[in-house]
């Protein structure tokens, strides 16, 4: 007891000030905290003010993609929990399968709209190339995830898709390691590995976006402050 109450005091180390970014402290932990703190203070994760141009409809697509993904994950969790035969034998199960199915369709529609929106707005400018690249990886990972989902429906479609897709995968030499005819393997990949990867990538993507802020419109570029007080004028 007496030791516990003595924690953090009397050691000669000054108590940490709230919000300190471990300025000047040595060590890996301090380095990580400096990095996180510098890149992503809470006010940037949850902003209350944004550039006025964020009112454009194009910014809706990314948010709606997240919303659809939420329902994909929720309905998928219910399906996984109830077991793989449930939705073939129960009306409620089938309804949850429908929710999963249509959330996925929504997810893809809005992700593709988001992709095109980002392309035509050249969202990779001003140091955002990595955000775009993680986006593309998300797109590709989503496709593989959906594909494994179609394979584990346990109906005629799954059989047909598996039998047809095997040749393309076999041709790459990967067929022996990613065997689309192996339900157990595809089930694990679809229900666990890929959803986790997808979720982590989405978090990374959002952190990338929030840490830099949305990109300025094309034709109204950022001009580094050269010390002169005059600004670019155009956007005044």
């Amino acid at each position: 007891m007496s030791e516990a109450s003595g924690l953090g005091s009397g050691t000669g180390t000054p108590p940490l000030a709230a919000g300190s970014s471990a300025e000047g402290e040595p060590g890996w932990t301090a380095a990580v905290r400096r990095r996180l703190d510098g890149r992503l203070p809470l006010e940037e994760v949850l902003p209350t003010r944004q550039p006025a141009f964020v009112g454009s409809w194009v910014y809706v697509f990314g948010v709606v993609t997240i919303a659809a993904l939420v329902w994909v994950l929720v309905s998928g969790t219910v399906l996984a929990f109830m077991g793989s035969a449930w939705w073939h034998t129960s009306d409620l199960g089938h309804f949850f399968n429908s929710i999963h199915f249509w959330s996925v369709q929504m997810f893809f529609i809005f992700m593709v709209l988001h992709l095109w929106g980002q392309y035509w707005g050249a969202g990779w400018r001003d140091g955002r190339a990595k955000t775009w690249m993680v986006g593309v990886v998300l797109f590709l990972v989503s496709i593989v995830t959906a594909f494994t989902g179609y394979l584990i429906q346990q109906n005629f479609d799954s059989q047909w898709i598996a039998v047809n897709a095997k040749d393309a995968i076999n041709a790459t030499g990967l067929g022996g390691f990613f065997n689309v005819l192996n339900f157990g393997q595809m089930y694990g990949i679809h229900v666990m590995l890929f959803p986790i990867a997808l979720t982590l990538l989405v978090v990374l993507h959002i952190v990338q976006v929030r840490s830099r802020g949305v990109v300025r419109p094309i034709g109204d570029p950022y001009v580094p402050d050269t010390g002169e007080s005059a600004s670019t004028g155009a956007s005044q």
Partner: protein
Amino acid sequence: MNGRRPKIDKTDYYRGIRMTPYDLIKEISIATVGILVAVLILSAVLSSPDIPSATIQAWAKSDPVDFVTTAASELAGQTTTAQYGPPYTTGSGSVQSIGPIEPQVWAGVHVAVNAPLDFVLQPLSQATVGDQTLASALTTFNNASAAQQQKWLATYNQALGSAKLVDNEVSVPSGDYGPVPVLMSRLLTLARSGGLDALLLTSEHFYQTDFSKPLLFLSDGGYFPGLAQAQDLTGSQWGMMNETGRYPGQAWLWLFTLWYQVPPIGSASNADLLVVVVMTVLSLGLLLVPFIPGLRDVPRWIPVHKLIWRQHYRSMTK
């Protein structure tokens, strides 16, 4: 070392741009509820597809001649699966390569399938209990020379061309088929009972989740593709991205499927490999758009951004 700060401070980055209040959490909440409503409506009104899976039992019952023809070809080692090549066999029937680049061969056999043994002889030998006729037919077949086996099977396969269903049995004109008709008739009975579906799943383990063998067997026959044809699912009908019924399938595979409709690629014997290569290159292109001159400039040349940020540009000209 100093604490790292973003290279460009945001207040600096947004210099000259009007900032407005913005409620992120509210926007996400509204989107989440909105999508849920849309999805619930779609699910209630349109449901989702669930065409029951094909079984070997259903195949043997509804098209016994096709089943027996396929089984006899498996026994003769003449089906697509029997001659496939890696990852199933050491053959080369379905091996694709581009010149000296043959990843399929390099990877080797990892899901070994021995068509005559796995699809016919092994299941039959498990069904010999109490069936002396089958047991001796199997012994006769196994003891015969490979040449003799092939001779029986060749004549039998030819005779199957004029096979008829008599008393629900596949009947062929009489000829020298050795023990083959007995084997086939027993396999048909086994398949009709549903026993073959189960026997194709067994291995040394108790738990089974690998459907490679029954799926490969099904895909060698005419019955399974016939079902797909009836559902508009085949390749020439943009198969892979379609769903049964009128449901949207994997529409996002449109570009992948498109290449199969492009003559020089789609008609090539290594079409799959070519399509994979093309798609890999295109995916890399998409990944690297920010760095590819031309591709990254299109958005400036074709000013869709005028629509995206219309409000902003309007306020700029004021």
